[in-house]
């Protein structure tokens, strides 16, 4: 029985490596090639609309509520140390460095990532991808590539919008409700937030998360088992794997960027 367990473990590792390889091949096939702007640009716009514009509502609402909650919780603790003027710094730094990129990536994986996987999985199940190949249209460049670029462009923008709305929400709670001095709120925040160290690093993080989430979503859709059960499994796998990868990558990136050696 131990032998079975060990060989099952080995099989899992081999499957993992093979799927990593096929994911790499899929991305390579989708991205490499002469960029045909006139044919692919409308596709990119349509995908930007589906992935970016239609996620705006959930991103902005979540950003608003998360900013307000951080503002409230932060105020409740800081007021004990008479340090409530640092509330702006707390809200801004936690959103810019961590919560903005990570929560946006998790929400994006749940909403847009699962939609991508389901759509491409259904295309595979109804043999649309094979029909495209038979018409000498490369399905990777026509289907996968616009979705990849749209995701990579849309998600960092969503993360920035999330952070901005969150900071504004934090100021709503702190300044307008709890009565923290508006001038100190914004000036302490401005003194402590640095463009290159906080904002740029947060942006780089959201870029890395965007690539991983969209890549996982597209791969799971493209390589799913083409049955209804297979599509449902692939969608679940996308959300779970993408969330785990985002959180793990976040720790690694934080250690590299903010760990100070």
């Amino acid at each position, binding site marked *: 029985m131990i032998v079975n367990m060990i060989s099952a473990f080995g099989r899992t590792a081999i499957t993992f490596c093979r799927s990593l390889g096929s994911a790499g091949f899929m991305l390579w096939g989708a991205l490499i090639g002469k960029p045909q702007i006139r044919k692919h640009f409308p596709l990119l716009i349509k995908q930007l609309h589906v992935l*970016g514009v239609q996620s705006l509502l959930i991103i902005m609402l979540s950003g608003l509520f998360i900013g307000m909650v951080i503002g409230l919780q932060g105020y409740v603790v800081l007021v004990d140390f008479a340090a409530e003027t640092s509330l702006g710094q707390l809200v801004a730094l936690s959103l810019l460095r961590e919560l903005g990129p990570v929560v946006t990536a998790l929400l994006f994986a749940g909403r847009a990532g699962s939609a991508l996987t389901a759509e491409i999985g259904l295309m595979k199940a109804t043999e649309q991808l094979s029909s495209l190949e038979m018409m000498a249209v490369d399905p990777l460049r026509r289907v996968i590539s616009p979705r990849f670029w749209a995701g990579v462009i849309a998600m960092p923008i969503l993360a920035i919008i999330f952070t901005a709305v969150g900071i504004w929400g934090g100021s709503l709670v702190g300044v307008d409700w709890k009565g923290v001095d508006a001038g100190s709120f914004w000036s302490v*925040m401005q003194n402590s937030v640095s463009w290159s160290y906080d904002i740029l690093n947060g942006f780089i993080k959201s870029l890395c998360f965007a690539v991983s989430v969209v890549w996982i979503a597209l791969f799971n859709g493209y390589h799913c088992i083409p049955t209804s059960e297979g599509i449902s499994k692939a969608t679940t796998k996308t959300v779970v794997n993408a969330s785990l990868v985002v959180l793990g990558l976040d720790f690694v990136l934080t250690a590299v960027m903010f760990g100070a050696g």
Partner: protein
Amino acid sequence: MRQTTKYEFWVGLFLLLGIAALVFLGLKVANVQGFNEAKSYHISATFDNIGGLKVRAPLKVGGVVIGRVTDIELDPKTYLPVVKIAINQAYHDIPDNSSLSIKTSGLLGEQYVALSLGFDDGETTEMLKDGSKIIDTKSAIVLEDLIGQFLYGDKNKSEHADAGKESAEADSQ
């Protein structure tokens, strides 16, 4: 075709919203100073110990920020820290016998450079200009040295007192 224009409009709006959020973050949250970079002139000063001073720390006169630290290095010959500071061009009447000291803002705050103006006797003092060096500098207060003075300074004082007493007794005998 109509559908494409509808998509383009909303995507354009989405991108504009993203740019607006980025501008808001840059200006109101991070106070990006790079665009209204006032003209500045550079001076340098040598300290014995800069403590926790960092690049981009402010230079303050009476609490008002007039410049920033641009560079901190060790002098290659004397191995003393040399701090280069950029001062806003609007403040060009600083006498060159002013002194610099490294202070801490608040109790746990970060350190900044404070400039106390020297006097201008109208004839021999020059004003600071690009490339000047300030000679009168006071180092940062390092907590360990302070504690060391407190702990061992007392022992020195009591040794002196004993030696004083012995010599007084020797005199009186």
